[in-house]
């Protein structure tokens, strides 16, 4: 593979847990008189908090869609049951597999960044596998949409289809964001500027997209 890694990238090793609130001495000078122990105080990089905050917002958005579905379905005379396109189950396998490969990739890259350089195992390889699986998932979803469309089931055919499209497209849009994140990770790895927190945050996002998809599949399967 074309990725060559001349030197281990910048890393944040032996990050010490922040010692309770207030010691978030973020890139701080330590006063001359201070306890030297404080030098080790190091708050977690914001990306690791930020990703949870972002995921909370995404959760709220999908919770809103879900409650819209429940309210809209309750007492609606026009609700029609739909059969999910079977390709969705294949897609589910793809996205679950992508989480597994990403986890392998994450550990390898982390080990590599930690200085455990194993030239035989190109750490980026599994990232590419993950990217491939992610793109296949999007392709599979697109196939499902096209298939439904070919059968004459559009966004406005019935409200069940409206929700089907809204939820799957909203998820796919977020997933494409994750693909962008992975591409960014690969790019940074190649330039040796990848930070551990970026890698971890991106993989958390990716895993979350997998969990979200499984939830959505369950919701659609149960409700539609």
């Amino acid at each position, binding site marked *: 593979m074309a990725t060559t890694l001349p030197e281990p990238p910048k890393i944040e090793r032996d990050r010490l847990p922040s010692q309770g609130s207030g010691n978030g001495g973020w890139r701080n000078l330590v006063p001359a008189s201070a306890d030297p122990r404080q030098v080790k105080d190091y708050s977690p990089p914001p990306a690791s908090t*930020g990703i949870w905050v972002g995921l909370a917002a995404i959760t709220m958005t999908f919770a809103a869609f879900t409650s*819209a579905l429940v309210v*809209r379905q309750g007492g609606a005379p026009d609700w029609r049951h739909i059969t999910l396109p079977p390709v969705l189950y294949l897609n589910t396998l793809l996205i679950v597999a992508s989480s597994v490969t990403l986890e392998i990739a994450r550990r390898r890259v982390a080990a590599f960044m930690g200085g455990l350089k194993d030239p035989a195992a190109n750490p980026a390889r599994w990232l590419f596998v993950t990217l491939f699986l992610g793109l296949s998932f999007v392709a599979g979803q697109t196939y499902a949409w096209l298939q439904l469309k070919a059968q004459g089931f559009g966004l406005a055919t019935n409200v069940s289809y409206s929700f089907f499209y809204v939820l799957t497209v909203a998820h796919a849009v977020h997933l494409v964001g994750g693909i962008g994140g992975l591409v960014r990770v690969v790019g940074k790895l190649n330039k040796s500027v990848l930070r551990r927190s970026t890698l971890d945050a991106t993989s958390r996002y990716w895993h979350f997209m997998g969990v979200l998809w499984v939830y959505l599949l369950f919701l659609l399967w149960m409700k539609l």
Partner: protein
Amino acid sequence: MHDMSAPAAHHGAPTSFIRKHVFSLDHKVIGKQYYALALLAALIGMALSWIMRIHLGWGNFAIPGLHLLSSTGAPGNVLTPEYYLQLMTMHGTIMVFFVLTTAPFAAFGNFFLPIQTGAEDMPFPHFNMMSFWVTFVGFWVLIASFFVGDGPTLGGWTQYAPLSAIGSVGGPGQGLGVVLWATSIAIFCIGQLLGSLNFITTTLDMRCKGMSLMRLPLTAWAWFITSVMGLTAFAVLMPACILLILDHVAGTSFFVASNLVINDQVLPHSGGSTLLWQHLFWFFGHPEVYIAIVPGMGIVSHVLITNMRKPMLSHRVLIYSMAALAVLSYMVYGHHMFVSGMNPVSSLAFSFPTLVITIPSTIVVLMWLGSLYGSKLQINSASLFSLGFISMFISGGVSGFFLAQPSIDIMLHATYFVVGHFHLVMGVAAMFGIFAGTYFWFPKMTGRMMSEPLGKAHFWLSFVGAYCIFMPFHYLGIAGNVRRYQAFTDDYLIPLIPVHKFITIAALITGFAQLIFVYNLIYSRFKGPVETDNPWQGTSLEWSTATPPPHNNFGATMPVVYHDPYQYSVEGASSDFVMQTSPEKINNPNEEK
């Protein structure tokens, strides 16, 4: 070991004009950009309110040049009924979203939150820059609806379905106008989500050494709590807007019921739920009113403490009360739907937390009053507007108790009583919070002082004026005056017209008083007396850095915090105030660790 000897700048200081002033990554520039946007929006919103008020007082009065805004909406310079509603909708939307959310939260929060936490910048400066520019685009999408199709939407800032979802049969602006409205708001949501993400992570992760959570000033707490609300509320409004847009452009039926006949036309939709919109909207909408007011609570506390030269009775209780407001604000939203045909049991279920939410509000007010009692408050424009805030918040809050009870609300719902309630408690109070913040922080933001005599004139005119405008609203509402009417032709309304005339006159005078503020702002920006770094002798971190603060906020040495934010009049200390960064040992048993 990490190299911690040099406080490396998070991102280098910008060199090009574009990077410095336009697509800036610096939270201080972004804060000022938000402020400018809010100011522009407020002026537009105020102009709209003048046009509406003149129309309500003197329905046939021709406002010169009005036809230029819309020849069909104001033929002969007099508003058509529909155009009145269109302007009203734009007034509400502009004010709630682009003024009351952007100024106290996004503008001041951006400028001061990182400084008050002792950070060099927000953790995700690119997101921060996007947050402003996305909001900016959202604003112009909304404004664009004035000039395309048949004008802006007339559905009110709450955009109730089915009117908002049926398209152009619903009247002017209900086609393209609603689509632009919903697009604008969805974009706005993205902007505020990005902002909230930054605010939350700044507060949690970026605090400087020694800055424990309880050592954060009340303003920082208020912005933090607000950003948590913003994160959850805007994440719900955005999908709601997307569904609304789909009902327009894709022919879906989320919000429009079957067989609806409008203007003799059967609509093609089927089975939609009209109440669904109200649920989604108010799940956002009620937290939104607290998003507008909580930053003001923080600003007012901060300003008063500095001018009283003593801390609030309890720092913690204020923080917990604001947090309680935030949590409860998600449980009360149904009080906007008492009259929606909701199950009476649900009404009861929403009435109860609505009454409970008055408890933390009352505690906050009592904290202020109790702390003010017996204090030697320095009177200046900032502290006057803070007192005004408290006054407005109480006056507007009291009417909330009435509205919170479904049996009373059945009569008062959709009357001017509600309009009076929310203008005092949210509109005017939040504006006063913005003013207090402006007079207080202007020297830090620009290096110059604002004129005090002009500020005081601005205060008294606004204070008396706001009461003259909004107190009579309550009377009108009790007399049965329905809101969102453009003329009062019914028998029982005609006797009320003199009240409307009085209100209109008060509104015009109060409006002109705001021009004093704008003049003061612009004049002082360039000609005001130059100030020192700490004109009010404040203790929090924004006062320990230079004016204007350097690119990384604190220059070569990042601050280390040793004290609570409000160490005023400490016994035995070397001066009347001990700054958070002062290593001086003081004997204050109540100090937070």
